């Protein structure tokens, strides 16, 4: 990576050499206090997960007494969740919404990001500022009018009616992340494509896009997680189980009967939808980190 940054146009004098990544300070001789902090941070991050799983495995008295370990662990809550047609519908809705939004956002954003990262363009800074300003919009500001507009044109309480506004928030995130990935690809590659007589668009499609696959994958993960997580638009623009995605379904989850403490089943449902994302983070940890910090500080 350091070789790539060295080739960036801001030809800097050799006064700021990149530190080799491996040489870190304080190796091996860690203060015991630091270890206390490490353990505290790990505990803070992990204990809530433990408690969620623990709650999901309990029923009845075991649940209401709040045992630290379930004395009679039961998967009954999970069975209830999987037999709940509304939850299954919500799962289907979330998958459709997240996959479609991520795909469409990635296609359009890769075009825009390439133009912003590489092509000569008028008012580039203004366009970038406009795009970034969309990310600061509170979702409620567009949820309120869309609630009215969608009801009039029949998009209220439909999957499409959720995909469109979610796309609006997914696009700037994808453009922002992809722009910084495209900037890291050496310019020489396009130049040599031009030499071979390629047009800028062919250079983009045949040379840059294949090289940007890791960046595209990273962006896809970030967009997918944020679309999956989004709640306000989802709760404002849907009303029936046919269109509700998972977060809304879980927020409105109720027990099987009035006297049932639904916490067990809610926790089970929460565990079910958390597991795939946790696996995604475990597998793609490096990508997520590079995506979250892309362009932010590297400058």
């Amino acid at each position, binding site marked *: 990576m350091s070789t790539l940054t060295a080739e960036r146009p801001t030809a800097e004098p050799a006064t700021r*050499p990149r530190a080799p990544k491996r040489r870190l*300070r304080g190796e091996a001789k860690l203060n015991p206090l630091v270890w206390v902090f490490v353990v505290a941070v790990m505990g803070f991050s992990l204990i809530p997960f433990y408690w969620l799983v623990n709650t999901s495995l309990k029923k009845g008295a075991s649940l209401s007494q*709040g045992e630290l370990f379930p004395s009679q662990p039961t998967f009954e809550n999970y069975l209830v969740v999987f037999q709940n047609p509304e939850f299954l519908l919500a799962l289907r809705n979330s998958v459709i919404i997240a996959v479609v939004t991520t795909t469409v956002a990635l296609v359009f*954003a890769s075009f825009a990001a390439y133009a912003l990262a590489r092509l*000569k363009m008028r008012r580039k800074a203004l366009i970038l500022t406009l795009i970034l300003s969309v990310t600061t919009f509170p979702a*409620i500001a567009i949820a309120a009018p869309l*609630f009215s507009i969608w009801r009039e044109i029949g998009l209220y309480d439909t999957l499409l009616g959720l995909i469109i506004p979610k796309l609006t928030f997914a696009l700037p995130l994808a453009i922002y992340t992809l722009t910084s990935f495209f900037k890291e690809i050496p310019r020489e590659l396009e130049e040599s494509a031009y030499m071979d007589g390629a047009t800028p668009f062919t250079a983009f499609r045949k040379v840059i896009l294949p090289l940007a696959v890791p960046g595209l994958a990273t962006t896809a993960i970030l967009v997918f997680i944020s679309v999956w997580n989004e709640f*306000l638009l989802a709760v404002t623009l849907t009303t029936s189980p046919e269109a509700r995605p998972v977060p809304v379904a879980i927020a409105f989850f109720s027990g099987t009967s009035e006297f049932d403490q639904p916490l067990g089943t809610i926790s089970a449902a929460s565990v079910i*939808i*958390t597991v795939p994302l946790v696996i995604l983070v475990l597998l793609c940890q490096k990508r997520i980190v590079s995506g979250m910090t892309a362009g932010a500080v590297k400058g």
Partner: protein
Amino acid sequence: MANKTLVPGRGVNGRDRAERRLAVRMTAPSLVIMALVAAVPIGYAIWLSLNQYSVRTAGLSRFVGLENYISALSSSEWWAAFGQTFLFAGLSVSLELALGTAMALLLNLAFKGRALLRTVVLLPYAIITVVSAITWQTMFQPNMGLVTNVLSALGLPGGDVVWLGEHGYAMAVIVLADVWKTTPFAALIILAGLQVISSETYEAAELDGASKWQAFVHITLPLLRPAIVLAAIFRTMDALRVFDLPFVLTRGANGTESMSMLAYTQLRENRLVGEGSALSILTFLTVMVVSVIYVRFAGGNIREVAKEEQ
């Protein structure tokens, strides 16, 4: 770099023009979607906010000018939500920045298990906010939650408190849930800032006899400022829009209603489209004003980044 002067096509006007045309065509789809689904609705929201409009009696729409704004701005609900949102943002963002900086310093140290720590720290980011809210709700349940149980077992105060039933406690749980989920984000941005500080700067300081603490205060913190400001901007914008956490944890009860929640309640529960729109525009303006202030006074580096893009 010598090869910069060799960039071909500089003088070739045809390619220049082709490039500009392509650039416009490539950005247009994204810009059109964002304009249609962000700018148009906001314009419509402004129009709605100037009308009295009720879904209950369909089609009834009467232009009332700024009446909705006046009634919102003179209501105690708006100012309560405004105050609570800023209280929440102030508390959670400052905790996230402090904890995030500490975590970033920790992750920047070389020790066995650093990779594991990084993965563990990142896990809460994977959980959706609604689930994070549910998780913290179960931890603070009276008699059956982990925190309440441990507190009463240790004989500490707080074990018999109905955490989500009282304002101060409920706000604490909401802040905690937010800190838990989003500190990793702040930590990673700050870590990226740490990693571009060259180790030679520290070696020079060490030669000059600076202590570790002095090095931290005089080297690390100033050089880390851009990263911390960036994390602060992202996190503040998010915190001011908070919705999911109070929605799930308290449904806005006990004075935890945020600006977004108040607008949602008027719109969906009370079916007051005009007033709901006015409240959402007010929320929008508040967030805008704060982001402008941030970029103006704290984010010198943001403007430099924008300039560099030109």
